[in-house]
């Protein structure tokens, strides 16, 4: 619009805008001129000015007429009620309402759409509940009534000093009015802030997850593609990735942080599971009942069990090996079992370190015992028993 003025009078549009803003700030005069200009002047690309459009429409005239009567009677009513102090305010208020109405009725459909969007946005900005324009209007009216009553109370008090309660009542009413007017906006702002914070946390989590999926899952998938003709390697990769994901799901916080060496039997047993699964193409299923801290004898038991599991992985040809450990007060029992091809113990050369040295003798050194049960075709089970001298 300023641009239009500038064009007409041949001045720089920036200067016109500055003048308009300054006059608006200081006098309110600028606003009036701006509005009048808007109403009276024909817009670029349109045939008639807003005023002439109103003038040419019978219905618009009627609305204007009714509006004017309503405002006049409202002012009259205020005069009679004796709150003429507010007459001036009311005049300005009603005039601006009337002006808004005129503009609203007069603007073209395009502009009306634009205005509607603008006002809806304001309504929603003011209310986090999304009550919309009618709700905002209702609340505004209610709060204005409160504020007016409050001001009226206060002004009456000033004439009758001594009635302190009037001050309280007036101030309270005023505050209530303010609260009703602004509360939704405050709440909306606060909610918006916490929503924003939550969104930021979510975005952070999503980024972490994306990073993890990339680093672990996608990498493994590309490895699997490369090893597609090697089923053993594929199975190993899949198991590794599966375990990795499980750990991450249970405890994403500490995932990837190098953990200390295990201090309990259970943690140590799971480490054996991972090690054997990663090194050999066999699934290891560990079931543990109870737990205890590690010491030399317990480590020997786990070492013997690990050897048994590795034997199963190497020789049994079974797809999986089960490890079961039960910690009781007097002893720890460990079973390592596979359903593979089994063997006849008489056929095993006595110099094979695995069974005799790593399993039987290691157990014996700590007062324990190892029993191996195996039959060709019926799998193998190694039972390890470690007596506990004192409480675990």
């Amino acid at each position, binding site marked *: 619009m300023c641009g239009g003025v500038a064009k007409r009078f041949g001045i720089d549009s920036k200067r016109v805008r500055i003048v308009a803003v300054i006059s608006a700030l200081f006098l309110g005069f600028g606003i009036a001129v701006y509005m009048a200009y808007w109403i009276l002047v024909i817009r670029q690309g349109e045939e008639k000015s807003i005023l002439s459009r109103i003038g040419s429409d019978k219905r618009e005239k009627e609305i204007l007429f009714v509006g004017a009567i309503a405002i006049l009677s409202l002012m009259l009513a205020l005069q009679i009620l004796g709150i003429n102090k507010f007459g001036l305010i009311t005049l300005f208020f009603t005039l601006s309402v009337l002006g808004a109405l005129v503009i609203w009725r007069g603007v073209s459909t395009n502009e009306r759409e634009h205005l509607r969007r603008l006002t809806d946005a304001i309504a929603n900005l003011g209310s986090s509940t999304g009550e919309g324009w009618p709700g905002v209007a209702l609340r505004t009216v209610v709060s204005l009534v409160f504020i007016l009553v409050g001001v009226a109370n206060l002004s009456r008090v000033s004439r009758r000093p001594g009635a302190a309660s009037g001050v309280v009542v007036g101030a309270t009413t005023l505050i209530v009015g303010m609260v009703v007017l602004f509360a939704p906006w405050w709440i909306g702002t606060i909610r918006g802030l916490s929503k924003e914070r939550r969104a930021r946390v979510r975005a952070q989590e999503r980024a972490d997850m994306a990073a993890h999926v990339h680093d672990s899952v996608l990498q493994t998938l590309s490895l699997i593609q490369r090893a597609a003709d090697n089923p053993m390697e594929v199975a190993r990769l899949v198991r590794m990735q599966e*375990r990795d994901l*499980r*750990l991450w799901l*249970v*405890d994403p916080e500490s995932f990837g942080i190098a953990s200390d060496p295990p201090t309990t039997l*259970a943690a140590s047993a*799971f480490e054996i599971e991972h090690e054997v699964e990663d090194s050999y193409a066999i699934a290891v*299923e560990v*079931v*543990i*009942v*109870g737990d205890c801290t590690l010491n030399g004898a317990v480590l020997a038991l786990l070492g013997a069990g690990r050897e048994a599991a590795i034997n199963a992985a190497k020789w049994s040809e079974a797809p999986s090996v*089960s490890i*079961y450990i*039960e*910690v*009781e*007060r007097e002893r720890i029992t460990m*079973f390592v*079992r596979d*359903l593979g091809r089994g063997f006849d113990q008489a056929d095993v050369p006595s110099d094979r370190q695995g069974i005799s040295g790593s399993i039987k003798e290691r157990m014996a050194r700590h007062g324990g015992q190892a029993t191996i049960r195996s039959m060709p075709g019926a799998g193998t*089970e190694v039972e390890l028993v470690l007596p506990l001298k004192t409480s675990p």
Partner: protein
Amino acid sequence: MSEGALPRVFLVDDHALIRSGIRTELGDQVELVGEADEVEAAIEMIIERTPDVVLLDVHMPDGGGRAVLEGVISNQPSVKFLALSVSDAAEDVIAIIRAGARGYVTKNIEGPELIEAIYRIAAGDAVFSSRLAGFVLDAFASQNGEAEVAPPPFDPELDQLTVREREVLRLIARGYAYKEIATELNISIKTVESHVSAVLRKLQLSNRHQLTKWATERRLL
């Protein structure tokens, strides 16, 4: 389930890929009467079709398998549930069993084993994976390990396992099949099944406060 007829099975899982995998593994060994991929639809269809066995995914949106279980059992107590999960977390396992599932197996179970488990559930027995057996032993055994501190069991019949039940569970935990357990303990398969069912009952009905506490505290996989 009438004699000689295939068990009527309903499948609940929110992943189409898993459902089609299970469908392939089941083949024509069971009669698949329906599938659902979300809680609401599952409850509605199961109540309407009254299958013998529901294969139930534990982890689903809107309350998961547990919501389905609770929604159906109040209306159709005769429907039996076999929980299927990729998770071996104790709290999930114990929670779904205590909600009423008659068995629990992991999704990487082999096809023939799954079919065997379905038949067993349909016949009214319970199905324990080795992991679940370990959990139960652990949960019920803790009272022995800390006998001095633990309060005496409220209901000895429900709160303790018999020696035989303990033996059966131990063998399941060691990876033994029911048939192998029967041979090992010199009892019939029917007897093994009745021991497992008895343990299931205790697991579902026992008021041992340690059970839930134990399950939530245990975060091992």
